[in-house]
């Protein structure tokens, strides 16, 4: 150690003893490399700035799943079935039968009518002429608009209105069960028929807020407005992505402060932050060049890249400060730091990248995009961290304050590390192992409750207490309607979709579903036919049945809602309203339909799963359940293999990987306990957690092995390890944690879930590496054998 130019210590079983080739390449061409990297930064940075947000619905669903294939194949036939907004106008004091309320409702209806994107012909409210009451008379039907023709706001006309409402069959649909609110129902165009422009959800949602909610709640303090619908939800999500910019700022500031507190060196703070931001620019620029945009998932990757960049940068700063404290100049310190770190650093980063790539097993585009984005990002961190960072530091060097900081704290730190090194003590290690086994047992016990899918009511993408989900809950409570819809597509030959056999089969399936737990209600053309047949027979319930007479069926569905029959009458949807979107609920309903479809799909009618938000979720859940185990096997397989290739010892692999396994189990237990399901957002957490979490183990083990090969006892070797790298490892865990912890405040629920779980995994993996790894080493490693093997290798 005393002779810096000839470092005998740095030998791995796999590495040549001389100055590594890479080190010579980089340090002999410092200026050229820096210039090249600057040019690259300018080019990619230019592209990074121009990257666009991209919240495509299709990328978030498993496109290869047969349900989704079916859904997309018949997308045109199903159009408008699901794309609408419902605006509930609630009277806070009193009921809807007041002049003021009706006046406000009228104005809101008019305002919605003129919003661009609204299909005006389908707009429904008490004030539109398509909302009618009907009565059977001797001559046939008698009816009129629900608002009396001579409505003037007087007591009499309000009383007439009340009568009409009761006769209208709209209670529970357009009028709440308690008569305290009514709905303005606005179907939307996917593409504007006038301009041909696709509906801009962000703008539409903002208009709803400004022109409807804010305006009329201010105008009439006695009303409250609740808005739900796919367009509103997507609008809110787009708003949510915006808040990420704040998180990015907060994260950078926090990390910088922490880094300065850690290094007490301006250059040691700014250079890692600078190079990490450059890695982010490279990553974003490359993504744009590859044609990607930023969706609510991949928008999180820059945080990870930044955090990983910082955490590895810390290792460099730490190593340089230690070397500089020994009296070396900046270039030599940088060289030594590079030499000490390029193997574990590269190994750690490569295993990060492979961890991400295992996400490819999930057949959902956003997750694959996430894998690509994160993989690219980490690959760039290898260059920015091990080349750019080191080179810049070789020019600037660590400031005097930073070096002093390392020297001054030596004594005090040593006492702390000495204490922690007891984790490898023969007396302490078994206790640690026992605690680990108990933790594992508890984890396995609680993780039994782990569920696939989303568990909360309402829109799973948004928080439970978000405005949208509160509105949704209000509408569910006050109207007979469910937000979780699965659509079974019933396909028939052309012009055959209304045949008796088709309606009869749909009715049979509907009754099976009605008898299935978790199914709230169902609806199809068969119901329309029954209701209208009854109505055409003087409203007599004795006629509530599907007629075998096709002429009667045809008459009964003449005015069926257009969404229930496609243009050439070859497809008719069967809507299944579910009580919630828990995985079991979806699974039970799907199984009933699958079984029925198998027995009853023939030339006349084929039953296809599945559209609707619940159909998509059922498909997603299936993909996730299948991918989950594969992904775990591969991520652990890859990480173990990389560790084995580097350290050539199964015992080493166990020391590094077992703490990760414990963290994974505990993470799943925490998910089960806190009601977070395995879903598109949380499945990647496990891969990311393991891929990044292995870094700590690698840094610690590589040092530990080095000191063991120098002939030290386990506890001494571990003490030296902690002394040289412990601080950096702890700091790494904290930086990574800070990188993701801000997501917890995201308005987007899955980002918050990811943030929470990653925060846990990053910190626990760090604790696992410092606490459990040495305990395992006590039982697994045999230093004499290692020394012997090392000698043989020489």
């Amino acid at each position, binding site marked *: 150690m005393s002779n810096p130019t000839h470092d005998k210590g740095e030998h791995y079983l796999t590495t040549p003893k001389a100055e590594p080739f890479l080190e010579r390449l980089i340090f002999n061409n410092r200026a050229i490399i820096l210039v090249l990297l600057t040019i690259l930064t300018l080019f990619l940075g230019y592209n990074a700035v121009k990257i666009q947000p991209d919240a495509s619905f299709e990328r978030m669903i498993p496109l290869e799943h047969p349900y989704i294939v079916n859904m997309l194949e018949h997308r045109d036939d199903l159009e408008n079935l699901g794309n609408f907004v419902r605006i509930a106008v609630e009277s806070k004091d009193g009921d809807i039968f007041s002049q003021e309320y009706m006046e406000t409702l009228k104005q809101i209806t008019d305002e919605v009518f003129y919003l661009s994107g609204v299909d005006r012909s389908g707009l429904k409210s008490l004030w539109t002429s398509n909302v009618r009451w009907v009565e059977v008379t001797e001559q046939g039907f008698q009816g009129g608009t629900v608002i009396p023709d001579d409505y003037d706001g007087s007591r009499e006309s309000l009383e007439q209105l009340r009568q009409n409402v009761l006769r209208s069959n709209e209670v529970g649909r357009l009028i709440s069960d308690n008569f305290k609110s009514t709905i303005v129902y606005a179907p939307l165009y996917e593409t504007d028929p006038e301009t041909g422009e696709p509906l801009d959800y962000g703008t539409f949602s903002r208009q709803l807020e400004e022109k409807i909610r804010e305006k009329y709640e201010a105008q009439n303090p006695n009303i409250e407005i609740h808005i739900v619908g796919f367009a509103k939800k997507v609008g809110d999500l787009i708003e949510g992505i915006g808040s990420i910019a704040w998180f990015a700022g907060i994260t950078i500031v926090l990390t910088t402060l922490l880094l300065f507190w850690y290094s007490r060196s301006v250059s040691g703070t700014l250079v890692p932050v600078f190079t990490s931001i450059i890695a982010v620019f490279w990553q974003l620029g490359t993504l744009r060049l590859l044609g990607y945009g930023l969706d609510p998932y991949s928008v999180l990757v820059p945080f990870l890249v930044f955090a990983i960049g910082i955490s590895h940068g810390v290792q460099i700063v730490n190593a340089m400060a230690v070397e500089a404290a020994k009296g070396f100049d900046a270039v030599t310190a940088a060289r030594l730091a590079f030499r000490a770190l390029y193997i574990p650093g590269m190994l750690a980063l490569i295993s990060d990248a492979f961890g991400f790539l295992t996400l490819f097993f999930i057949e959902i585009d956003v997750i694959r995009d996430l894998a690509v984005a994160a993989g690219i990002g980490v690959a760039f961190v290898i260059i920015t961290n091990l080349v750019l960072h080191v080179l810049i530091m070789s020019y600037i060097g660590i400031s005097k304050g930073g070096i002093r900081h390392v020297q001054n704290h030596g004594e005090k730190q040593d006492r702390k590390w000495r204490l922690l090194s007891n984790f490898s003590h023969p007396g302490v290690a078994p206790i640690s192992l026992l605690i680990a086994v108990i933790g594992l047992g508890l984890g396995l016990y609680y993780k039994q409750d782990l569920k696939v899918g989303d568990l909360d009511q309402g829109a799973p993408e948004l928080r439970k207490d978000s405005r949208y989900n509160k509105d949704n809950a209000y509408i569910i409570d006050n109207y007979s309607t469910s937000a979780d819809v699965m659509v079974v597509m019933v396909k028939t030959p052309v012009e055959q979709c209304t045949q*008796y056999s088709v309606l009869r089969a749909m009715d049979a399936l509907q009754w099976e579903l009605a008898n299935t737990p978790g199914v709230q209600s169902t609806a199809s053309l068969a119901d329309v036919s029954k209701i209208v047949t009854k109505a055409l027979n003087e409203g007599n319930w004795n006629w509530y049945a599907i007629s075998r007479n096709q002429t009667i069926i045809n008459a009964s569905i003449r005015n069926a809602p257009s969404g229930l029959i496609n243009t050439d009458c070859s497809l008719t949807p069967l809507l299944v309203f579910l009580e919630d979107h828990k995985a079991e609920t979806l699974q039970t309903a799907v199984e009933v339909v699958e079984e029925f479809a198998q027995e009853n799909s023939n030339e006349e009618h084929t039953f296809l799963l599945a559209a609707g938000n619940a159909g998509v979720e059922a498909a997603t859940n299936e993909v996730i359940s299948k991918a989950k185990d594969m992904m775990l096997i591969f991520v652990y397989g890859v990480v173990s293999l990389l560790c084995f290739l580097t350290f050539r010892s199964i015992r080493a692999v166990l020391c590094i990987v077992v703490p990760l396994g414990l963290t994974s189990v505990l993470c799943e237990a925490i998910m089960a306990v806190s009601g977070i399901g395995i879903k598109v957002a949380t499945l990647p957490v496990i891969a990311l957690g393991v891929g990044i979490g292995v870094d700590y183990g690698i840094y610690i083990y590589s040092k530990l092995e080095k000191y063991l090969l120098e002939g030290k006892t386990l506890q001494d070797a571990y003490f030296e390890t902690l002394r040289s790298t412990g601080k950096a490892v702890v700091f790494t865990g904290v930086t990574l944690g800070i990188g993701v912890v801000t997501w917890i405040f995201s308005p987007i629920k899955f980002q918050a879930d990811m943030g929470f779980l990653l925060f846990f995994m990053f910190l626990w993996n760090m604790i696992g590496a410092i606490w459990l790894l040495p305990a395992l080493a006590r039982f697994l490693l045999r230093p004499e054998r290692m020394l012997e093997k090392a000698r043989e290798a020489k």
Partner: protein
Amino acid sequence: MATSLMRKTLGATCLGLSMACASPAVWAVGDLLETPARPTELAPQSLLNDVAVAGDRIVAAGERGHIIYSDDEGQSWTQAEVPVSVTLTGVDFGTENHGWAVGHSGAVLHSSDSGATWELQLDGIRAAELAIASQEEAIADMEERIEQAPEEQVEDLEWALDDLFFRLENMQADLDIGPVNPFLDVWFENDSHGFVVGAYGMIYRTTDGGASWQDWSQKLDNPQGFHLNAISQIAGGALFIVGEAGQIHVSIDGGETWERRESPYPGSLFGVIGTGRVNEALAFGLRGTLMYSADLGKSWSVVSTGSTATLNDGAAEGDRIILVGNGGAVLTSGNGGDTFREYLRDDREGVMGVVPVSDTNLLLVGEGGVKHADPQGKNLQ
């Protein structure tokens, strides 16, 4: 029986839907007449169209072949075993043990164990064949009459013959489609004699407990084949049938012969009940219409109910009369029908049947299944 029915049903259906049956498609979803009612806990909450009393037992019938019975005044219900899944429209017990239920696809079901299990006695195919045979007989009779008739009557009789042919053609067209038409009500005198009535003037009689059926439509003056909606017997033994377009038919000889009565109301009548006093009847239907007759229907007076709801069913106990109808209407009278008070139930669901139970409470059946109500029709907590 079951196999022959299936052949007939499928054959008939295939004629109607020749496209669909071109290939030998298997109906894994069976014909409603061959699909036993699915056991379900939802039956007491699903549409029930009629309710009857068999001794201490209450039996109700409704959609999807549901028949449910209760021995504790409707507190708990058991679903009966029913071999069909058609919508049932009427149920009646001739004795405590023997009951009949009718419904769509011309289904007539019989139970000999107070409603616990049921068997199919008649279906729409056989009913239509019976009606066609008797229609052909009527045509033959008419042709004979025309041959023997004096010159001046021939033209009228030929018009009548045309009507008969027209109806025959309709019957045959319907049969080509399958068992299309529903029965709408049933009445049994005892364990052997009874009538079923239904759409397009269908009426059949049995005197052997349903082992054989006779088409009885030729005995009623209903040349246009209007729906016959309800049949019941009033105190004194007279039988009343009411139906579409203000039809009222009365028999005072136990159903052998029927006489058409003039109705002051031209709209549809959906029910008829006795008041409990000899030869007194109440008929009711569309738009709150209620008519009273004390002379076997020869003359009627319209009673103002103050309601505009279609009335479907009623019950009389002394001076107390209860009528139920669509839109949650429950009309009650404490003075033998002189005046009524209307209560509209909160759920506004159609009520199809009513049975008075103890404490002057009511058991209602209808759109939303079984409901327990107070004497005015308000839901009991």
